[in-house]
């Protein structure tokens, strides 16, 4: 496979050969605090893109903006060529861009299987009047269940299918959330800190699952703190600091970038700040 990033310059806002997401001039401030101010941003289709940055860089806010969970003051952004400005989170999900959450949102007092079924699309029984006549939705329910079982097996949760989601471990809930997001066959999946709170044993299988998603033709964008994960699986890394994108490139190039090191460690990390030095 040729590297689609071969001709992409290593600079913030670099244009990609086949972008699935394009954002322009996205600006979000809370009172006087600018949380996100992104001039231009593109995500390459069918690749794993990591969004990294120090705490408070605006990664999660930007994530929320892209998925409709928050609204920016100004900006344009599109998915697959369709503008998503003012679109509700539900519609964005139905358009094929599904997200997970930093604080896992497993539906605790529902079984693992019910969690999975809820992720499915095209179940007419979710309409009130159709729901009254089981004959109209049982067939689709069978298809959904079969699909859910296959996904649960793949994510090694099949034995837990009748347990309540609240009884799973933190890492298993992350897996469930990812599996649930896949029920709708999204084109793009956005993971908000998929590794947070996951034990090392499970980290490995989570990483494999993310790579598998790309190999199946899906686009992955994830926010992460864990640099090992970023190095291991990200095809392209985008670094945010203080609301803006400050660097882009492959993991190794980005880590050596002066601006990135300054952002993580502080611009004056090697300067002596004591009085007699000046």
């Amino acid at each position, binding site marked *: 496979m040729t590297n689609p990033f071969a001709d992409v310059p290593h600079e913030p806002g670099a244009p990609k050969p086949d972008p699935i997401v394009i954002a322009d001039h996205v600006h979000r401030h809370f009172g006087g605090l600018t949380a996100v101010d992104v001039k231009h941003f593109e995500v390459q289709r069918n690749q794993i893109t990591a969004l990294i940055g120090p705490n408070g860089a605006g990664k999660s806010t930007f994530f929320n903006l892209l998925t409709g969970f928050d609204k920016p003051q100004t900006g344009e952004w599109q998915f697959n060529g369709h503008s998503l400005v003012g679109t509700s*989170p539900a519609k964005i999900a139905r358009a094929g861009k599904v997200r997970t959450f930093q604080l896992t*949102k497993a*539906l*605790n007092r529902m079984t693992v299987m019910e969690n999975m079924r809820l992720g499915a699309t095209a179940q007419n029984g*979710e309409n009130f009047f*159709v729901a009254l006549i089981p004959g109209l939705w049982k067939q689709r329910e069978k298809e959904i269940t079969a699909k859910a079982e296959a996904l649960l097996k793949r994510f090694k949760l099949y034995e837990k299918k009748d347990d309540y989601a609240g009884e799973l471990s933190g890492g298993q809930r992350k897996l469930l*959330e990812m599996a649930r997001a896949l029920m709708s066959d999204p084109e793009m999946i956005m993971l908000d800190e998929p590794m947070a709170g996951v034990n090392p044993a499970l980290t490995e299988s989570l990483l494999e699952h993310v790579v598998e998603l790309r190999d199946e033709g899906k686009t992955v964008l994830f926010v992460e703190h864990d640099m090992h994960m970023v190095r291991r699986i990200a095809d392209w890394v985008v670094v945010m600091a203080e609301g803006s994108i400050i660097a882009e490139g492959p993991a190794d190039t980005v880590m050596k970038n002066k601006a990135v090191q300054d952002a993580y460690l502080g611009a004056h990390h090697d300067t002596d700040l004591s009085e007699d030095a000046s």
Partner: protein
Amino acid sequence: MDILLNSLASVFAPATAAFALAAIGLNFHFGLTGLLNMGHAGFMLLGMYGYAISTQNGAPIYVAVLVAIAAAAAFGLLLGWPTLKLRGDYLAIATISAAELIRYLGRSNSLQALTGGSTGIRGNDFKFTFEELSPLPSENITILFWTNHGSLSSSWWLHIVAWVTVGLFALLFWLLARSPWGRVLKGIREDEDAVRSLGKNVYSYKMQALVLGGVIGALGGVLWALGNSVQPDSMGRPTTFWLWTLLLLGGAATVFGPILGSMVFWASLVAIKGLASAFIPTSVLSPVELEPFSLVLVGITLMCLVVFRPQGILGNKRELAFND
């Protein structure tokens, strides 16, 4: 013996059925969707007014029932429109005040001609269309130990209609709770944002649940009115809290929880009142103090329930309990 028979009578009294039905409505709100409706009595009262006033104005019974349904549906839409986009607590605040608003409007002097003000609407003014439908003879009928009139007021006829209605709506709850529609509602109860991220229109589902539960509450109000009269002050905040009590007592999110809860609640209220009047001398507790005293005991029972069985009698602790 009388105490026992009276308690048993209240197990299957029409009033018990009316509360069970209203609690089924509340179960759609809270048990399935997690909506904190603190003004369910308002829906009941609207149903009562809708039914009684349209009957007074010559409407046939089915039109009167439709008016009750329409009034509750409109009230639900109006309440939900601004509040369902906000966090759950706001719905609680809005519903409790909206229900009080209905009650105060109903008992206000300016609406006296329509609602009868604080005295309300006498039973005889609106019960006749229902009583005329009774196939039972118009006389007192004794079944086992209990005597009721065949067709009038808290009649055997009303007993039958009330419990058949409760049965039908319990069936509806059972059907919907296990459907994909009910699954979306349960998802919303657990986490709205997660359900949004899966592509469901959360606002629309919450609205559907609010309106459906409200309409069922209004029908519960109609059943109540058919056994009593339309009295705005009988549908105040205490009624809402009793509904919550008996729903949680029976077990929220279960099919039979509201029904069993209502039966246990009313039977124990009657039993406590009976026992207290039989064994506590009037010098200690005067007859007027009996009612508040038994309600105090009900309150204590509820507290014990929260402590010892948070999921209610029939509830599933893993699915829905107070303390999590």
